[in-house]
């Protein structure tokens, strides 16, 4: 079961990398993650959500 789960995670990671690569080249209207984040960061609520998410990620990975 672990192998299947890890394989699915790998497929999702590969999809993210492909999406990012296509987005950077603007293939068929796709956008990069940076462009997407910049778009949401224009709004105050978007900024708050991303910064809180960043804080939680650090706390979760390194402290707890």
């Amino acid at each position: 079961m672990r192998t299947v789960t890890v394989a699915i995670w790998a497929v999702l990671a590969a999809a993210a990398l492909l999406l990012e690569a296509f987005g950077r080249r603007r293939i068929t209207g796709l956008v990069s993650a940076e462009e997407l984040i910049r778009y949401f960061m224009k709004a105050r609520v978007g900024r708050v959500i991303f910064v809180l998410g960043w804080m939680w990620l650090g706390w979760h990975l390194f402290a707890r």
Partner: protein
Amino acid sequence: MRLRLVSWPILLVAGAGAAASAVMSMARPFTWTADVTTAVAIAGVLLGGCLFASRANRTRHSAPLAHPLPRPGAVAWLLLVVALTTFELLNLFEAPRRQHPTISSLLVLLTGHDVTRALMFAAWLVAGWWLCRCR
């Protein structure tokens, strides 16, 4: 003539980030060292990022108005985020964790070693710095 490649505040920030990453490489989760290092790093990035951003805003023209995202791009990322969240939740509520690893349990492979832990911490700091300065 003196060549100035980087300003001293940038050097200071980079040095502080490197020092924090070095401390974090030796700290383990659920210890006060890890708690304090993470908390100080968050405070430092937020404070430093805000200071730098306000300084940059004084010299920079206002950001252009947001244009709508291309629909295929927005839909593709939305689908990926939904897939990642769904699979993460499915694994989170399954047991045992070894058979159903979540993203964080897979990342333990990296955060469990000193060097990769320091590199991941440095990457997290850079991401926070970028978010604070992102306009």
